[in-house]
């Protein structure tokens, strides 16, 4: 009995779509789960009723709407509502795909750095371009914190610029690493149960109770993490967008 906690992250091409340069563009299991997430969100938001007194599905749709709207208003102000569709898309995409990914035998999209990096860069460039478009050169005030003595200002500015350009890195790696590590830990502990059982027989199955309990606990934790990381990603997006909307801080 061999346990491979990495196998769950394999990209399996389902069929080839075409070529760009010398890259093969394939429809992979990752693509499948991306579209499943989009489909689930569309179903949730479009198939739910429009009743005055909402049913369960409609409540979930409205709660997600209100939740994201409240998050934006509290972090980026009412001007941030311009980015409501973007932030809502990011949050729902990550939340739904992460939650789907916790189901055994499924694939977790955000366990691939390229995906989280692409989303983080999307946010980064949105902030950069919107900030420059809206505020012009005043946008660079975000690198010059007010009330800092002039003699340490260059150092502070250097740090601010560095942290600004490292944002996409921390933004994407946080989500990626959380999903990756959580899924590996789950697989390892779940693997112990089977390994003990198949190698030690009856004694092994009894001994497997402990890793099984741990797996259950971890599973609950992973459910929380799946939601929480999507939320963290969305709220960081709001905070970064707030810089673009109100550069002087």
């Amino acid at each position, binding site marked *: 009995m061999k346990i491979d906690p990495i196998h769950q992250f394999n990209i399996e091409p389902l069929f080839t779509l075409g070529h760009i340069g010398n890259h093969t563009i394939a429809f992979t299991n990752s693509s499948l789960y991306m579209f499943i997430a989009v489909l689930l969100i569309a179903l949730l*938001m*479009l198939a739910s009723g429009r009743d*005055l007194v909402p049913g369960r599905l409609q409540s979930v749709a409205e709660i997600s709407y209100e939740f994201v709207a409240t998050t934006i208003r509290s972090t980026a102000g009412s001007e941030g509502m311009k980015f409501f569709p973007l932030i809502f898309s990011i949050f729902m995409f990550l939340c739904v795909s992460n939650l789907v990914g916790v189901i055994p035998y499924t694939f977790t999209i955000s366990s691939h750095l*390229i995906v989280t990096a692409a989303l983080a860069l999307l946010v980064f460039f949105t902030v950069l371009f919107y900030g420059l478009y809206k505020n012009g050169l005043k946008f660079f005030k975000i690198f010059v914190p007010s009330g800092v003595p002039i003699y340490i200002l260059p150092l502070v500015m250097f740090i601010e610029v560095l942290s600004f350009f490292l944002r996409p890195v921390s933004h994407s790696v946080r989500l990626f690493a959380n999903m990756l590590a959580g899924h590996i830990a789950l697989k390892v502990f779940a693997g112990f149960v089977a390994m003990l059982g198949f190698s030690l027989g009856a004694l092994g199955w009894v001994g497997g109770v402990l890793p099984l309990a741990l797996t259950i606990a971890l599973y609950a934790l992973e459910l929380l993490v799946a939601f929480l990381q999507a939320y963290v990603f969305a709220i960081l997006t709001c905070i970064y967008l707030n810089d673009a909307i109100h550069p002087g801080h």
Partner: protein
Amino acid sequence: MAESHGEAKGQAAGAHTEAEGGHHGGTFPPFDSSNYASQLVSLAIAFVALYLIVSRIALPRVGGTIDARQNKIEGDLAEAQKLKDESDAALKAYETELANARANAQAIGNETREKLNAASEAERKALEEKLAAKLADAEKQIATTRTNAMSNVRGIAADAAGTIVQQLAGVTPDANAVNSAVDASLKG
């Protein structure tokens, strides 16, 4: 596609992943750059589709439902407030009316009581006067009757005195002297 990166197979921690099936080599899947293009393309398609669905249909729809509910609630609350104000006004009007009616009733009662009091007072007075007049009449009659009776008594006494004197002395006394003597004794 995955066959092309066998070069990583020999290195790193390839040993256990190798057993899983040769075609993925030893590269850690998230860092296998050969499938980046596929993921980026499908992510772009999926995310743009999601963004369009969300921004064009889903959010206006759900937001519209929430706004409609909010408006409905506000409208209902305003309506309820209006009705409450109306009922308050009606209650106030009713109370004023009731107070007026009560005051009127009080006034009418007082008036009637005073009128009746005055009437009964007048009647009582009239009755008393009548009774007083009757009393005076009766007293006068009694007085007349008494005077008459007294004058009769005097005549009888004078006659009796004259007769007694005649019987005793054998002379007829002077009527005047008898009268004055009777008067004197009546007085005494």
